[in-house]
């Protein structure tokens, strides 16, 4: 099939950037979206132009690198799918597809479609862990965890940190990302010891990074490739307010 791509090109963080149109011909509908981008890049390099830069790695929907706003939606039109798992068969011959980077103050563009998502790492560094050193831990079966709780924690932990939640949110809020980690650890007995400190610090870091505020539109869950639930945002709200009013931090 033949397609027109309208791709955001930006030379560097300080470049103004703009859209460039590319005509793609003979695209096989079995290709993944990123393979189609590979084809474009091969053509560009052969013409002596710079290829379109984009983050990608595992191409099986788990590393969270790929991040394209395709045709008006993060990761494109398929729900529960990361960009790398999106295949060309969902598009029609003659379509024009607009491809943009994630847009958020906290995710500045580095080049073309590559954005800086290190804000997420800093949020985890603020408290997204259980403070145990290697060794000296109890036997794994010494703390039973009800299956339901373990499954729920797992569902939260499936987050791949791609940033689609931020990209989808009209306020560029990172609540779903933060809530997933806060909830995973708040649910498990291992994480309960530090739960108050954790949520206070992680939310403070989230705010400091310049993400927007949640207005409960729930777009984040809809666009999340792992379909992480809104329940966790409610849980984090609860955790946060409880922590703020009952923790020892003055």
């Amino acid at each position, binding site marked *: 099939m033949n397609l027109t791509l309208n791709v955001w090109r930006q*030379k*560097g963080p300080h470049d103004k950037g703009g859209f460039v149109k590319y005509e793609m011909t003979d695209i096989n509908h*079995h290709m*993944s979206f*990123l*393979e*189609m981008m*590979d*084809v474009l890049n091969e053509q560009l*390099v*052969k013409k002596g*132009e*710079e*290829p379109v*830069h984009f*983050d*990608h*790695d*595992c*191409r*099986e*929907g*788990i*590393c*969270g690198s790929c991040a394209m706003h395709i045709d008006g939606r993060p990761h494109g039109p*398929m729900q529960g*799918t990361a960009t790398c*798992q999106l*295949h060309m068969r969902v598009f029609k011959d003659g379509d024009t597809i607009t491809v943009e980077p994630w847009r958020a103050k906290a995710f500045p563009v*580095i*080049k073309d479609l590559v954005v800086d*998502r*290190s804000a*997420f*790492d800093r949020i985890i*560094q603020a408290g*997204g*862990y*259980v403070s*145990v*050193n*290697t*060794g000296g*831990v109890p*036997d*794994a*079966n010494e703390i*039973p*965890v*009800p*299956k339901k709780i*373990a*499954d729920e*924690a*797992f569902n939260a*932990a*499936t987050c791949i*940190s791609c940033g689609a939640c931020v990209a989808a949110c009209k306020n560029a809020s990172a609540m779903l990302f933060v809530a997933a980690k806060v909830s995973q650890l708040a649910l*498990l007995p*291992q994480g309960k010891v530090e739960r108050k400190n954790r949520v206070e610090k992680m939310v403070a870091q989230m705010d400091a990074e310049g993400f927007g505020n949640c207005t409960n539109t729930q777009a984040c869950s809809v666009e999340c490739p792992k379909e992480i639930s809104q329940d966790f945002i409610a849980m984090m709200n609860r955790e946060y307010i409880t922590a703020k009013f009952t923790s020892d931090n003055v």
Partner: protein
Amino acid sequence: MNLNSRIPEGPLAEKWEKHKFNVKLVNPANKRKFDIIVVGTGLAGASAAASLAELGYNVKVFTFHDSPRRAHSIAAQGGINAAKNYQNDGDSVYRLFYDTVKGGDYRSREANVYRLAQVSVNIIDQCVAQGVPFAREYGGLLDNRSFGGAQVSRTFYAKGQTGQQLLLGAYSALSRQVATGKVKLYTRTEMLDLVLVDGQARGIITRNLITGKIERHAGHAVLLCTGGYGNVFYLSTNAMASNATAAWRAHRKGALFANPCFTQIHPTCIPVSGTYQSKLTLMSESLRNDGRVWVPKSLEDAARIRKGEIKPTDLPEEARDYYLERRYPSFGNLVPRDVASRNAKYVCDEGRGVGGTGLAVYLDFADAIRRDGRNTIEARYGNLFEMYEKITGDDPYTTPMMIYPAVHYTMGGLWVDYNLMTNIPGLYALGEANFSDHGANRLGASALMQGLADGYFVIPYTLGDYIASLPFQKVDASHPAFDEAEKGVKDTINKLMSIKGKRTVDDFHRELGNIMWEYCGMARNAEGLQKAIGLIQQLRADFWKDVNVGGNVDELNMSLEKANRVADFLELGELMCRDALHREESCGGHFRDEYQTPEGEALRNDEEFTYVAAWQYTGANAEPQLHKEPLQFDNVKLTQRSYK
């Protein structure tokens, strides 16, 4: 060169305990005087960096990804083995050790494997304490499953995302140390050379991938946790950016590369659909528990299926060849990975392959659905079927899945001793980057175990032995050795940029992959390997004459990143072929056509090849030098595998 494996004396079960007592310790107050460089943030790198920082060392950790959590360990699906014997089904440290040595076709070190089995139990405890949400039973205790044909249930798992959960555990431990300031994290920074001062590893040269700046980092020891080199085949289940550059550049500086030809080819991957294909996706091995593998009996039917004239479901039972069930009546579809892979290749070579390219076989669930009902099959494999449909557009409930083998894991890697130190003092290799534990073939659910064992429970003990022998002073990054290494890196980059040829980097990489897959893939022979060596040499020469990189050096330039990596693959590929050529036997993932039993099974030559082949670099176009570390088996008896 004398390869001293430093395996401790004494009975197998006591070696590690004794060794831990005998290694030198570094005074807690002195640890902060030492800088440790960790390259890579996968399971091995993240766990090592976090554990060493907890002990008090200053750690600098490097990843070329934008975040440590993107390392490819994250994609491991199945699970992690541990000899916990929670299921009361007869597992033990000794059994895990035995299975691993046997699975590795007797080409690994007994002592290393035994230690791996010993610390496996600690790994699970550690991960659970970190909040890794493993699957659980209704009673709240951990669940296990049997994996990869093991006779006991010793695999811990978190749905099909075990690697992700374990990596996030290690990543969180690492993040905690970044917050304390004990770890300095460098993201989007790629190691391009190792710096040796007086023969000791004293630092690395890196490129900041955003600014293109070449930087020096000095330290008292360098840990390479940089994963495997499966991408030498271009198409593999590895991530796009997985590469061998750090390990290879260390090899060029003198580190020996061991058993490079031992690659694991996984039988159940989604087949290639066209030349644009960029990577292959693994489908869990568990599918073979219920799926039946077949191809058409006749060449004509196969041709008609390929052309789309008939559908696989049209073919009557008697026109199908369930070749694994036919050849291996007792194991059937559950034969080990290498056997299943090789047989798929044979039937496709005969011209009976299916799919658009003829390089695929069917994995059929029709019988299982008839027998157990669609709901049962959906409960077992629902998410896998969904993933398959997402990628191929076919519905496996109504038409058989198509699968084909793909490169998955590399057992070979940098040669290390029992302390995980390479032959270069101060240079260590952990996880898939080293060669040590899997021999010629890796068992399912053992890669995660090894990565975390090395990082959490081996290196924190063994590193001290070396560090304790060093003086306290800081390593100086202005030493002439750094100048020289930095210049070398810059020269290579400038050369790559200046060629301005006609072919893209991917173009060369794809061609290298084709050569490797054809001649150094599932079945190898002397003639093909010799041919491949010639082809690779030619391709390498072409690369340095005709590659087109484009862009600039002082900015984000992914073509340049790839060019650096492919340049190394072009050398490594040749070494793999040389190793495969020299190893005149079939064992594990290495199958030589010339060495097989009358039934077509792998034929080991224990008399001549019970050794680790460790290769020394002698120059880009010079023949490498072989060193042998003999393997001694005092506890297990070498037997021939049989799955008839």
